[in-house]
């Protein structure tokens, strides 16, 4: 079991040569059986394990990860948290997530640097303003915070934006002050350390090669480290959901796409919070190390390659220069690609499958990071009690058959448009 972190502890260790620090989590061997197995040692899987142990008293739990924990999308994203959603199926869920973020450090005894510096969506046209006002109102009616800023207010708060020769002038913005950023890797490590300290086994370098299903019941998983039995198996491998679930002969309302993200060289602080361009594909924030962390649209074609191509890089930088011409001489330092579970309506799925004992969590599109706590919470709830969590009732597999899509963007059944 891991001992607590604290400022005093850091000082004490510093004075005694840091001899006392122990591994943040154990490296146990797999047990033959667990009550619950979570496939996927990313943010969602590790969060699920943490809440299973902490909220639902389940500790005979394993998280199995094919590589190293936190190596997927939680380790390669633009670290934004927000709950600025429009539809009733989404907003309460993401607001729940934001509330969990707000208490995360205390909950995990790990400083993931949740930084609520605010997020603003810029508005460039009248119909866009109408849509954002509708969204802001939906947020407020759901108990979240939202603020409409007119052009003058935006100019005051973000004087460095392009108000002079913008092709699509800034006409206002919708702000959520409680939005912000989080040190993404620390989220995975914090959940892992906490889950581990509550008895959860984290099994790294353990790849699932198949499900053992007899009589329509899932009995466990075949892995590169042998068969592991389980009462219930929860899949949380967004990005690779298609690959994994095909082992259970399931086809999903999901395509895998690549989303690129970028970081600039470290710069002295210039950005107050997260800014989203409304007339192109660009959103940006600045990390605590000073790098501009930014991204845009997905490349748009199915891919598991974890890398993208130049046209999207250029498109993102064009949009960036369109609203922030002062970043022209800042240099793009790193670019990377993550695999996104792009779902058919742009919203996730947290649901049972038709196979008893097999549960699914995925379809996060590129909104997965901000959802990490609530997703883990809701998935833990479903796994522990076999019924959906209050905030995740709408995330069903059958919503496409019944016509209850949750389509924030109104793009229909074309995943790369969400």
């Amino acid at each position, binding site marked *: 079991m891991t001992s607590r972190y604290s400022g005093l502890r850091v000082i004490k260790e510093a004075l005694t040569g840091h001899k006392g620090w122990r591994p943040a989590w154990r*490296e146990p061997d797999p047990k033959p059986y667990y009550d619950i197995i979570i496939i996927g040692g990313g943010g969602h899987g590790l969060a699920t394990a943490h809440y299973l142990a902490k909220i639902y008293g389940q500790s005979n739990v394993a998280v199995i990860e094919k590589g190293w924990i936190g190596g997927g999308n939680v380790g390669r994203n633009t670290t934004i948290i927000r709950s600025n959603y429009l539809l009733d199926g989404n907003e309460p869920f993401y607001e729940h997530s934001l509330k969990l973020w707000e208490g995360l450090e205390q909950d995990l005894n790990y400083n993931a640097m949740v930084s609520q510096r605010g997020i603003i969506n810029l508005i460039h*046209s009248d119909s866009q303003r109408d849509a954002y006002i509708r969204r802001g109102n939906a947020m407020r009616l759901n108990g979240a915070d939202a603020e409409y800023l007119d052009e003058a207010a935006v100019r005051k708060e973000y004087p460095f934006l392009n108000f002079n020769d913008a092709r699509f002038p800034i006409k206002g913005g919708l702000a959520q002050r409680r939005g912000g950023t989080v040190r993404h890797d620390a989220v995975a490590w914090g959940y892992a350390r906490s889950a581990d300290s509550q008895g959860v086994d984290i099994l790294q370098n353990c790849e699932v090669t198949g499900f053992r299903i007899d009589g329509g019941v899932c009995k466990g998983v075949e892995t590169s480290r042998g068969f592991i039995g389980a009462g219930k198996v929860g899949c949380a491998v967004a990005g690779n959901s298609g690959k994994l679930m095909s082992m259970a002969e399931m086809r999903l309302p999901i395509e895998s796409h690549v989303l690129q993200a970028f970081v600039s060289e470290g710069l002295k602080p210039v950005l107050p919070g997260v800014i989203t361009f409304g007339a192109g594909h660009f959103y940006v924030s600045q990390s*605590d190390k000073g790098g501009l962390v930014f991204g845009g649209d997905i490349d748009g074609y199915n891919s598991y390659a974890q890398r993208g191509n*130049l046209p999207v890089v250029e498109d993102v930088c064009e949009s960036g220069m369109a609203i922030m011409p002062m970043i022209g*001489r800042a240099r793009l330092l790193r670019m990377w690609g993550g695999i996104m579970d792009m779902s058919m309506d742009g919203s996730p799925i947290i649901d049972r499958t038709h196979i008893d004992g097999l549960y699914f969590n995925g379809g996060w599109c590129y909104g997965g990071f901000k959802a990490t706590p609530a997703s883990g919470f809701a998935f833990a709830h479903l796994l522990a009690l076999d019924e959906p969590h209050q905030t995740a009732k709408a995330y069903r597999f059958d919503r496409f058959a019944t016509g209850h899509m949750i389509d924030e963007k109104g793009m229909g059944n074309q995943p790369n448009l969400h």
Partner: protein
Amino acid sequence: MTQVNRLTGGQIDRESTLSFRFDGKNFSGHPGDTLASALLANGVRLMGRSFKYHRPRGLMSAGSEEPNALVELRSGARREPNTRTTTAELFDGLTARSQNRWPSLAFDVMAINDRLSRFLTAGFYYKTFMWPAAFWECVYEPIIRRAAGLGSLSMQADPDIYDKGFQHCDLLVIGAGPAGLTATLTAAHAGKQVILADEDFRMGGRLNSGRFTIDDMTGADWVTKVVAELATLPNVRLMPRTTVIGAFDHGIYGALERVSDHIAEPAPGKPRQILWRITAAKTILCAGATERPIAFENNDRPGIMLASALRSYANRWAVTPAKKVSIFTNNDDGHRTAQDLHRLGIKIAAVIDTRPDAPGSTDYEVLAGAEVANTTGRLGLTFVEVRQSDGSMRTLECGALGVSGGWNPNVHLTCHQRGRPLWNETLSAFLPGEDLPPGMHVAGAADGQFSTHGALKSGQQAARRALGLRGRPPAVPEAEDAPVTQTPFWYVAGCERAWLDQQNDVTVKDVKLSHQEGFRSVEHLKRYSTLGMATDQGKTSNLGGLAIMAELAGKPIPEVGTTIYRPPYTPVPIGALAGRSRGKNFKPVRLTPSHHWAKERGAVFVEVGNWLRAQWFPINGETHWRQSVDREVRQTRASVGVCDCTTLGKIDVQGTEAADFLNKVYCNGFAKLAVGKTRYGLMLREDGIAMDDGTAARLAEDHFVVTTTTANAAKVYQHLEFVHQCLFPDLDVQLISTTEAWAQYAVAGPNSRRLLKKIVDPAFDISNDAFPFMACGNITICNGLRARLFRISFSGELAYEIAVPSRYGDALMRRLMVEGEEFDVVPYGTEALGVMRIEKGHAAGNELNGTTTALNLGMGRMVSKKKDSIGSKLSERPGLNEAEALMAVGVQPKNAEDKITAGGHLVSADGPLDAAHDQGYVTSAAHSPTLGKMIGLAFLRNGGSRHGEVMRLASPVTDLTVEVEITSAHFVDPEGERLRA
């Protein structure tokens, strides 16, 4: 200040002198200098501060791998933070400023962090700053953020321009060292289109930095000769100052050419840089190798640098950081550096060689089996403490220490498509793996060919292999061919504060702590300790950290992992990736045929997609847009108005089965539409949701003109082609977009017919009987101009849309204004258009928002059950047909003074204002001059049967809550008498 450290020789032009400023002091250098070499020449060793501990730092390298000597180059709006002094070419008047220090580079108060270093270990911040919870936001984080970053932005718009371009070639050669040059020669002589790109401003690679001879000339002279020859060949494109930044799919490479960075500012109209997208059938990577350091206590002082860098500065730039230097090496190449320096008259204090069997020298002392234990010198190296083979300590006085730990091939681009480099035991280095990007070959030092001869030869061979050349190759020039072995020596045993990543201040101690806390995979190590995450992308630090982790884990290096490299090879200005698409040129503009006329009229324009449309036409005395819009509406409804609606998409649908085709893409029927008639059509997506609406006019049995909304024109055309090519390939139908071919104007209002009669040629009868509502046809106007006339109405008035070839649009508008004077004709813009369509209850973009069905829009009955059409089946799903489904309604304020806000939600009359009582939302709102109050269109649960109900319109974000009455969406002329008049 004079150039005290300038030596003889070198590839600089001593004829002319350049002056420059660093931190306010004046210095001088020569053409051919980099800022780094010029500063060294002037005796400057201290050039920067590290990120975390603010340690004094000088040059580590002579190339783009430089982690320490970064400056803010240039001033004002052209300030470039984090610029490497080692790659910045010197120009007259250059100004540079050191970074991340206060108040000065020599005295930086933040250096206190160095004293606190034991507290600021890897990942310390994850363990603290948590109490009290509120303090993170308001106390801790602001402090951390203030310390963030190195250089700072000017916060002004980048004044320079950037171009982008495309090139195609048979062979792209990356790197103009010995291998790259022979590869290029070979391909060039074979008549291939070749591009040779090199990041340096002088081609030749390390041949410029050493004293190698090729055949009977010096390496540098050989380079000059070869480059001169290549320059004369038409099929060769030489691109110095060009960094290939990434290898992308299918042989597409990104390359950044620095066109004007070597001069004070770009010539007028000329770009600062060009981003090239090079499509190469084959590629040869000749990126060379980077020398690797050895970690030892306090190995980061100014004056301590890579031995090869010392050699480059001495040979190429004729400078040395100090008159007396030592070398610390584990291989023969370190001795080569010592010899070169000795020849140039620099005193070698000693060569410290970790190997007991180190080669001796008669020119200087060699300490075999020795190692550097520590160093001293606060702002620059003064002494080196050496632990000799017998364990005794010895102190050497010297101002510079060259460190050589062997060489790492620059395999970066081989990894850009997730290829993995392979560990090579004899070189104890990673070499290019098997899974190279398709079409890529590797040669020279990048492929582990460390001897000059080996490099020359492998370049030629790679080119022959890549291009499949036959026949006997010409002889490879004579050059040194010493066998190279590298025995790993990563760090001096027992060192703690020994830097691996100098910019991010990651030391051996930090790697040990990461291991102790379980962050043992290379991915965890990087993320936890920030090793290799600095602006140098870990070029000199990753392998050292990896090696130490491997030792701690008791595993071979490849098992701990290889960090796979991603683009860009070196950081790229965001402006260069954006190119010309910025500011007003971010996206092309689309102008309507009446644009120039409208501009004369003083119209206010609005962006609609890429279109610029007249929003309203203010006239004298009008101080508020509402006045203009109300007038335009009133005048149109009272007499006649004209509006440019060219932006609506127009698609020509022809073919003997055109009608059958439209029957499939519209949910309502078109088979029976008569020639000369127009019909409103609603298009669904296959998922049953409304995609777009418009009209289809049947000009002939086999000819329709379909209109789309402005926003969806491209999407609808794409959809129609999909339905035709992919679903019904044997329908005889042809689709052509003709949006811009025709200038199309709405002429609306009770007097519209009388106005049109004045321009429509008499041969065409447009009376109500001859040309009733929804009629259409080809006509001529103004005595013979071809035109099309459609009797359709968006405003609800008697109205037409008339179309003429675009070139005559301007003239037609002017003519309508003249002929219309007697009717007091008014031009109206998109605002008045919007007001009138809301008054009439017509759906538009705000209603067709991608989530609404025909049912929601009040057109449920339009979806024909008699035929199959796109979307008809899935529109039948229960969730889309619930009793509580949203239905289009109108809303009016109970109190006529009250405001209606689009985006406001309809909440039940009583109960709390919350999601549970949310019943719908307002999509569009406007002030109706006709009704004298604000009105809106909305979607309301089961709205069809709730007319007359009173609800609350709540818009918390605009601080609005008003009582509204639910009404029909048709506020004006619900029976449609006017448009049939």
